[in-house]
């Protein structure tokens, strides 16, 4: 097709690095004119929307967007669809009501929930935990906090949550806060669940520095430091997401929709999340010592599955 598709993260962040390759692969595999990875200069919503707007003027015909803000992006998406340009939320969802065609990504609530459950299991079903979270003003943070609390509540008091520490997604703030936490309470707490990229990395590193294998940590994403922590026993596990798959499948589907060959099915087996009613799980899996060598293959397998069944499950095509 002659579609030009842009994949746009919220800002510069290592998580999205695989999107570049995913886009290229998708363009080659599905014969799309272009699938370009375009990064806003800074992690700011207005820069993201300005980028989207300028790409429209450059003739891009479909957008895969990680919303810089789950609510704030909607107005822009609305304008896109008004111009017959489809957009899909990738990696993270936009908050309903939204004109995003669908959301292919990590269910932040579910991921945090599963991560906490994994942590509870690693702690032997009881103890005290701390939740490390990202920007407090990000609507997703609230969802993650709720998810952690839900998982904790299900233990009927065997596990208690000591505190949520937020605004840890800048390196230095994370280092300062997490170390302060360990300094104050390392003997009291039994586990930490991190629902943001940077605190996961920093917590993994801090536990290694401390030489502490008693405190269990379940993080998110597969940063090298976290994976090393898993191999060496400082980290119990991490919730892998599937950035490559999101970019690859996202581009594939957007191409179909933008070409007009397919439309999104209303009664497809969508997952309903607190954020959106049109959610597709891009694959969340727990990386632990057992699968740390092989999880990539697992993710690839998932990606292949989603891609091959997508048309039938979620789209109506001519």
């Amino acid at each position: 097709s002659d579609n030009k598709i842009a994949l746009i993260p919220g800002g510069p962040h290592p998580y999205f690095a695989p999107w570049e390759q995913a886009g290229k692969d998708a363009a080659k595999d599905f014969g799309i004119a272009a699938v370009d990875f375009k990064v806003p200069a800074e992690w700011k919503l207005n820069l993201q929307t300005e980028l989207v707007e300028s790409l429209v003027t450059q003739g891009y015909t479909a957008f895969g967007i990680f919303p810089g803000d789950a609510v704030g992006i909607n107005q822009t998406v609305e304008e896109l669809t008004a111009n017959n340009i489809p957009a899909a939320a990738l990696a993270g969802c936009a908050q309903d009501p939204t004109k995003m065609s669908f959301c292919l990504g990590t269910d932040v609530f579910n991921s945090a929930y599963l991560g906490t459950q994994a942590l509870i299991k690693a702690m032997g079903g009881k103890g005290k935990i701390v939740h490390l979270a990202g920007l407090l003003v990000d609507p997703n943070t609230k969802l993650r906090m709720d998810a952690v609390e839900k998982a904790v509540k299900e233990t009927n008091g065997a596990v208690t949550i000591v505190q949520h520490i937020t605004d840890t997604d800048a390196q230095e703030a994370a280092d300062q806060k997490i170390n302060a936490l360990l300094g104050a309470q390392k003997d009291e707490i039994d586990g930490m669940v991190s629902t943001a990229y940077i605190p996961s990395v920093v917590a993994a590193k801090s536990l290694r520095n401390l030489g502490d294998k008693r405190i269990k940590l379940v993080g998110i994403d597969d940063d090298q430091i976290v994976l090393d922590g898993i191999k060496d026993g400082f980290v119990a596990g991490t919730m892998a997401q599937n950035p490559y798959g999101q970019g690859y499948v996202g581009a594939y589907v957007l191409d179909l929709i933008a070409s007009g060959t397919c439309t999104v099915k209303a009664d497809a087996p969508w997952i309903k999340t607190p954020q959106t009613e049109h959610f597709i799980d891009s694959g969340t899996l727990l990386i632990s010592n057992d699968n740390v060598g092989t999880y990539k293959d697992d993710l690839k397998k998932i990606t292949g599955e989603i891609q091959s069944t997508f048309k039938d499950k979620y789209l109506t095509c001519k």
Partner: protein
Amino acid sequence: MTLAVSSDSRARPSWLAEQSNLIGLAAIIVLFWVLFTSLAPGFVSSFNLFALSRSLAVDVVIGFSTMVVLATGGMNLAIGSIGVCAVMASGYMMQTLGLPIPVAMALALLLGAFLGWLNGFVIVRSGVNSFIITLASASLFLGAMLILSKAQTFNALPPEIAAFGRMRWKFISPLLFIALGLGAALVVLFRFTALGREILAAGANARAAELSGVPVGRAIIIAHTLSGALAASAGLMLVIRLGAAMPSIGQDWLLPSFLAPVLGGTLLAGGYVSVVGTILGAFLVTTIRSGLLVMQVGNFWLQLFLGLILLAAVMLDRYRGIYAERRSLGRKDAGRRASGKSA
């Protein structure tokens, strides 16, 4: 030469000379428009112009918010926090309380003005630098907002809001007219009212102003109140633009809020503001940013080019200013100057 009535109008710097800085800035903007238009035709597409006018509108008002406080020689680091407080308040009033839009917006503006007044009051009463007070109050206001709202977004606002945000007048967002209207009001304030003059006098030399009977404390408080109201306006414009009231609004206002007025010639030290300059300053930055995006300058390198072009623009303006000054001097007795130089 002793002043004589007849010589006054002649010797008074002409309107053109007085505005030469603004004209220079405008010329540079035109230069960039020509450049971007010829290099990237998409730049003047109606979609891009609309988008540009809309982000310009908000940047201009944010710039005004800082400008009015710079006039007093102070700073307001809390504009983002005041903005978000107004945003969340308006969201709460419209979505939860179901108040009519104009009422909610007016009350939100009042809240912004009140928070600004609070800043000004504490600054004047304590005698502590506005930088510190507003640094602390930025945290306080944002914190209070988080405590009250639990960082919940209001995204079920009346649909008219979002519709207004999408509205176009030809290819320009009506938001821009609001911003320009505020600008016009500020021009009147600083040029034609005692209050505006007093604010400037207080900023230029507080001691002299005080001894000349200017109620300096009051001038500072009013400037901060105004700054708060403008910050709230910028916040509400974003609500209209985004169709939702979110707690993350305002977090990245600080630098652009300074950039526009300072580029436009407003003095950081106080005592001089340029409303038109602030608009042009914001316009220059928006133009460059949008132009680079449309020209598809490499993703990650965009910031570099933005910085370099900004540098080039301010230097161009600077040398144009020096050149203009030389010319106006040289005209007087260029012959003698030349002979003087060779001596």
